[in-house]
């Protein structure tokens, strides 16, 4: 297989200069493959690749790699998410050799949420390595064909298209762009950001990345999460660490339901407003220099992705190469 053929669809779209779209697919709290297929149906053709979360918020779900393979078989290119919370360097490297062997090509390296947030708060965490060390290990594996201990990988080494996350809204704010620089130095080729609601701070963050000369070195996908209702907006504003939701957004969500008495109708109105806000956010981030695409995190609401992408004028997506989304 030549180098070019091995590129993922996401990598090709980003390299071609098209504005990329990624989405998120949360695996089920169960073993039913039909759930993945149903979600894949909602996302196929609406995004260039789809992140498969890894025990997100420390809640046990179907494995990211297994769900990624199911998504790939269903014609949706996955981005495997790998956290450092649940596995040590042996397990991570072993699982990722397997992921590559199964034909998975995109990898997002994360530290992971603390297990106290999840449904097994008594679990022992791992954090043998952190996300930056994980990036470096996988970059070295791809570039130099070595494991974390320097030993050679047998045969063709995995060359994942490596990504990382960054939260422009976490403190200390001045450090965040430098953290991106560190992740790029470690091997990240794309960055997906935390959900953006505070556009001014995000603009500022992008400007700093520009000052650091990072915008030619890494593709930044702006993270957006459509709101389902004022409850979710308030929850994100008040309860989720590292989230910055301005009051205007919350007020807008509240206002969307004003005067609607029927519960179902009100919920519909909230969701329509959430989608509208997200479409406007896409227009805004497209104007910001250096933004290479959007990462739409419609949490347990995969139905929202297509109308958002369509509403933002981003359909149709560039055609994947034949066979690009198939295992092999």
């Amino acid at each position, binding site marked *: 297989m030549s180098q070019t053929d091995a590129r993922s669809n996401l990598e090709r779209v980003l390299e071609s200069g098209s504005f990329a779209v990624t989405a998120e697919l949360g695996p089920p709290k169960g073993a039913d493959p039909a759930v993945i297929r149903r979600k894949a149906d909602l996302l196929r053709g609406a995004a260039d690749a789809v992140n498969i979360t890894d025990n997100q918020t420390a809640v046990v779900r179907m494995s990211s790699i297994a769900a990624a393979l199911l998504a790939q078989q269903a014609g949706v290119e996955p981005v495997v998410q790998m956290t*450092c*919370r649940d596995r040590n*360097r042996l397990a991570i490297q072993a699982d990722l050799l397997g992921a590559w062997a199964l034909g998975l090509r995109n990898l997002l390296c994360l*530290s*992971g*949420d*603390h297990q*106290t*947030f999840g449904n097994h708060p008594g679990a022992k*965490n791992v*954090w*043998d*390595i*952190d*996300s*930056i*060390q994980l990036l*470096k*290990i996988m970059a070295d594996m791809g570039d130099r064909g070595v494991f*974390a201990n320097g030993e050679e990988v047998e045969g063709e080494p995995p060359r994942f298209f490596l990504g990382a*996350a*960054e*939260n422009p809204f*976490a*403190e*200390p704010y001045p*450090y965040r762009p*430098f*953290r991106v*620089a*560190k992740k790029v*130095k*470690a091997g990240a080729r794309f960055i997906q950001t*935390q959900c953006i609601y505070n556009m001014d701070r995000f603009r500022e963050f992008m400007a700093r990345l520009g000052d650091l000369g990072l915008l030619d070195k890494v593709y930044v996908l702006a993270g957006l999460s459509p709101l389902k209702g004022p409850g979710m907006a308030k929850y994100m504003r008040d309860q989720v*660490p*590292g989230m910055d939701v301005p009051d205007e957004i919350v007020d807008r969500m509240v206002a969307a339901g004003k005067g609607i008495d029927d519960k179902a109708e009100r919920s519909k109105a909230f969701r329509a407003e959430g989608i509208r806000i997200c479409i406007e956010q896409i227009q805004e981030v497209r104007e910001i220099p250096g933004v290479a695409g959007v990462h739409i995190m419609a949490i347990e609401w995969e139905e929202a992705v297509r109308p958002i992408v369509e509403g933002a004028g981003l359909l149709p997506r560039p055609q994947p190469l034949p066979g690009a989304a198939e295992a092999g």
Partner: protein
Amino acid sequence: MIVAEQKPLDEILALTEGAERVAVLGCGTCVTVCFAGGEKEAEVLAASLRMRARVQGRSLDATHGVVQRQCEWEYLDAARPSLEGVDCVVSLACGVGVQAMVERFPELRTVPGLNTKFYGLPTEHGVWEARCAGCGDCVLGLTDGICPVARCSKSLLNGPCGGSQGGKCEISPDTPCAWHLIYERMEALGHLDRLAEIQPPKDWSPGPSGGPGRIVREDLRRGPPPAEESEPAQPSSLLAS
């Protein structure tokens, strides 16, 4: 110091099940300083055990005592007379002290009265916080004296994660973010460039991951090691009689 806190009374009482004469043995070192297992706490616990047992209709005699340091075999001999005829000791020492008791008095039943929590210090009256996790390969020199292993909830080595907000860790508004503290200190000292360096994966083998800790200082060892060096010092004949 080693910081510990007392187990719930009913749990301690249950641990002594079947015993009629219980001795509560405090320790005069770390756990005295953190008000968990000193003489005073031993006295109060002995009284509480007696009362609680009476309520439950159980016959229990509980006395109390303290040794200067429960984590060294030699210091335990001072407690020997007070343990005569006792059929269960509730140790109010850290986990090291409990085991030192078991090793010094192997025929005596010793149960823990404390939960040993961490190596730390008091940050205000009545508040203790972890400072060290005994990782065996100290990185304080890289982080300007603030430990990311014990004080970052994820033991990260390359800077703050995305959950850091308002100087607090994502796990709780009561937990300072270690990396926020490190950042501020590096900034104040003009060392922020250090944060740009990628710290490689840590070698955890010098700490608990490498198996039970053991240090041998040949310069301090006296004479040839005893034939069965893993055996505890001579067992007490206290209970054999």
